[in-house]
C-alpha cells in the first residue's frame, strides 16, 4: 500500500489498494482533505482511496483559482469529473461531506456511469429557508458568516498568506502556523462560503440515478435532521442512516460509527 501524491490543481493523493474499488473522499467548506484523516487509513485497507483539496483550499494550486468560475458548485463538480477522467477512475464510490455532497450529486447526474454509489455526509440541498422548506438559515445569517470569516482572516491573511502562498517549495514554513490544517486562502474562502450557502440543488436530487446513502448526524446545526429527511425523500434510490454524533463532522467526532456506516454501504453487493 503506497501513497501516491499526484498533486496538481487539486492536490490529489491516492492511497490504499490498487486493485480495489475506487473511493473518492471530498471534504466540505472550511477544511481540506485532512478532514478524513481519522477514517482514511482504515478505508485504505479495503479501497483505492482518492483524496483531494478543492481549488482555493488546502494545498491546491492557487493559480487555478478564479472567483468567477468558483461561484458555481458545477465548477467544483467539473473538477471532480476531471480528476476521474485524468486518473481514469471507474465505478467510483463518491463520499461527499457537507457541500461536497451536492457536488457529488451534480457530478453523478452528469456522468451516472462513472459512479457506482454516492455517500452523502451531512448533505443539504439548500441552506437558506424558502417557502415550504426549512434549510435552517436566513440570508442575513450567511452575511454574518462572511463577517466571521473577515474578522478571523484579518490577521491571518496579511501576515501568514505570504508565508504559505509564497513558498510552495517550502511547506514546512506553513507548518509553523497555529492552525496548520484546513488552511484556506481568505478570498477563496469568501467565495466558497457564498457558493456553498447560497446554493440551491433541491431540483437536482430527483435526477440522481446512483444508489445513495445519506449519513445524518443526530445533532447538526448546519444540516439539521429535517434537511436529511428532505434529501432522502427527494433522492430516488436513497436510504438514510442517523449517526449518534454531535456537530457537522462525524468523521471527526464519531469516526468509528462513520467508518462502519461507509464501509457497510460501500461493500454491500447491489444497490
Amino acid at each position, binding site marked *: 500500500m503506497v501513497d501516491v501524491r499526484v498533486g496538481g490543481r487539486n492536490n490529489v493523493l491516492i492511497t490504499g489498494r490498487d486493485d480495489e474499488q475506487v473511493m473518492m473522499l471530498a471534504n466540505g467548506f472550511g*477544511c481540506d482533505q485532512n478532514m478524513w484523516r481519522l477514517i482514511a487509513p482504515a478505508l485504505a485497507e479495503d479501497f483505492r482511496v482518492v483524496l483531494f483539496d478543492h481549488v482555493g483550499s488546502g494545498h491546491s494550486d492557487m493559480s487555478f483559482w478564479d472567483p468567477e468560475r468558483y461561484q458555481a458548485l458545477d465548477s467544483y463538480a467539473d473538477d471532480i469529473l476531471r480528476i476521474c477522467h485524468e486518473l481514469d477512475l471507474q465505478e467510483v464510490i463518491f463520499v461527499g461531506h457537507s457541500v461536497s455532497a451536492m457536488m457529488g450529486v451534480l457530478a453523478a447526474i452528469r456522468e451516472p456511469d462513472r459512479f457506482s454509489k454516492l455517500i452523502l455526509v451531512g448533505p443539504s440541498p439548500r441552506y437558506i429557508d424558502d417557502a415550504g422548506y426549512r434549510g435552517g438559515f436566513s440570508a442575513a445569517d450567511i452575511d454574518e458568516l462572511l463577517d466571521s470569516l473577515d474578522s478571523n482572516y484579518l490577521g491571518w491573511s496579511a501576515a501568514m498568506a505570504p508565508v504559505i502562498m509564497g513558498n510552495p517549495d517550502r511547506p514546512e514554513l506553513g507548518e509553523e502556523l497555529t492552525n496548520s*490544517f*484546513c488552511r484556506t486562502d481568505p478570498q477563496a474562502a469568501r467565495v466558497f462560503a457564498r457558493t456553498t450557502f447560497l446554493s440551491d440543488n433541491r431540483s437536482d436530487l430527483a435526477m440522481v440515478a446512483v444508489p445513495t446513502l445519506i449519513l445524518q448526524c443526530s445533532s447538526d446545526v448546519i444540516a439539521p435532521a429535517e434537511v436529511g429527511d428532505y434529501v432522502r425523500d427527494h433522492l430516488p434510490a436513497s436510504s438514510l442512516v442517523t449517526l449518534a454524533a454531535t456537530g457537522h463532522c462525524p468523521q471527526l467526532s464519531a469516526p468509528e460509527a462513520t467508518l462502519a456506516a461507509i464501509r457497510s454501504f460501500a461493500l454491500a453487493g447491489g444497490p
Partner: protein
Amino acid sequence: MSSTGRGGETPGQDSGADDASDELFSALLEDSTEDLYENAPCGYLSTLLDGRIARINKTLLGWLAYSRDELVGVRSFSDLLTIGGKLYYETHLSPLLRMQGEVGGLALELKTADGRRLPVLVNSAVKTDSGGQPMLIRTTIFDARDRRAYERELLRSGQEADRERQRLRELVSTLQQSLLPPALPAVPGLDAAAYYHIASADEVGGDFYDLFPLSRDRWGLFLGDVCGKGAHAATITSLIRYTLRTAAAYDADPAAVLGTLNAALHERYLADNRCFCTAIFGLLTPRTSAEGCTVALASGGHPSPLLLRADGTAHYVALPGGPLIGVWDDAEFATATIRLDPGDTLLLFTDGLTEARAPDAAGRGRYGDEALRALAAELAPATADTAVAAISALLHDLGDQVEDDVAVLALGVAT
C-alpha cells in the same frame, strides 16, 4: 517606606516581621486559586465533547448576564454564538480542535442574555485523560470590543483602499485608451498592426503611436515616448498627438512636423517641468502593391525602426539622428526616405522593449538592440501582424522584466 513583597528587605526590621509578611503573602496566594478562576480578568468555560457547558466562571457569567443555572448542563457553547459564528465554529473550529487538540486567537461574537453582542477572542484546548482520550474542552475568552473596533476600522480602510485602487486602474485604463487610436485605419496595399504593453495598471504610460490619413493617397504615422509617467505624461501625450496631427495637415514633411512639435513642447519645457519626448514621424505614400511604397521618416532622439525585408534579412533603418524633442529651441530635424517593397515590413518600437531586463549569469543585462534585430531576422519575411504578434509574445515571456511601457507599430507591404 515598608516592604510589600516577599524577600523585600527593609533595614532595621527584625526577622519576625519578615515571617509575618511571608505568611500574609502565602495566605493571599492560597486563597486565590478559586477566586482567580471565578474572578479572572477573562472568561473560563469548560464544555463536554458534545458542546454542553460543564463549568463557567463568574467573569463570563457577568459578561453574558446569565445565571449559572441557565447555562451549566443546559446550553452548549455554540448556543452562545451568533449564527454566523456558529457556522464558522462548525465548519472551521470544531474540526481544527478535533485534529490539533487546540485552536487559538479566534474572533467570535457571543450573544448575551439581554440581547447584546460581545466581541471576544477565544482560545480552546482539549483536555485528555491519562489514556489520551479527549474528555472535555477548556476555553478562555477575552473581551475584544476595543480590538474588534480597531480591526473593523483596519478592514474598512483596506477595503476602501482596494476600491480606490480599482477605481484608479479603471481611470488609468480609460485614459490610456484615449491616448491611442481605437483601431488602425485600412491603408490600401499595406497591412498595419500595433500593440501597446502596459507596464503598470496603476499609472498611465508615456508611449504613443498613431496612423491616420492626410489625404487620399498620403498617410501620417508616428510613434514615441514621453519622459515620465502618470497624469503629467498623459497631458503631454495628448498635446503631442494633437500637435503632430495638426502640424502634418499644414506641412507633412516629417522634419517640419517634428520641428513644429519641438516648438510647442519647448514652450512647455521652459514653462513648467522639463517635459520632452522622443518620436519618429513618418509620411507614407502607398502605390500599387507591385511597386511597394515610400516612407519619409524623421526622428527626434528615438531608436531607429527595424526593416524586415522580403528576402529574410532584417536591419535597423539608418536615419539622420535628431535631438530629443522639446529640449532645445533650435533643434533641427532631417527627413530620410526609404522604400518598402512587397513583402517588406517596417517595425517601430519604443525603448521599453530593448531596455527590458534580461539578466545574464551575473544578474545584469538588458534585452538589447542586437537581440531584437536577431529576432526580426528570424521572423523575416513577416507580415505586420506576424511581427507584432511575435513582439507581444516576447513581452509576455519577459513578464515583469519589462519595466516600462512599450508601443509597437508595424507596416507591411502586401505581396
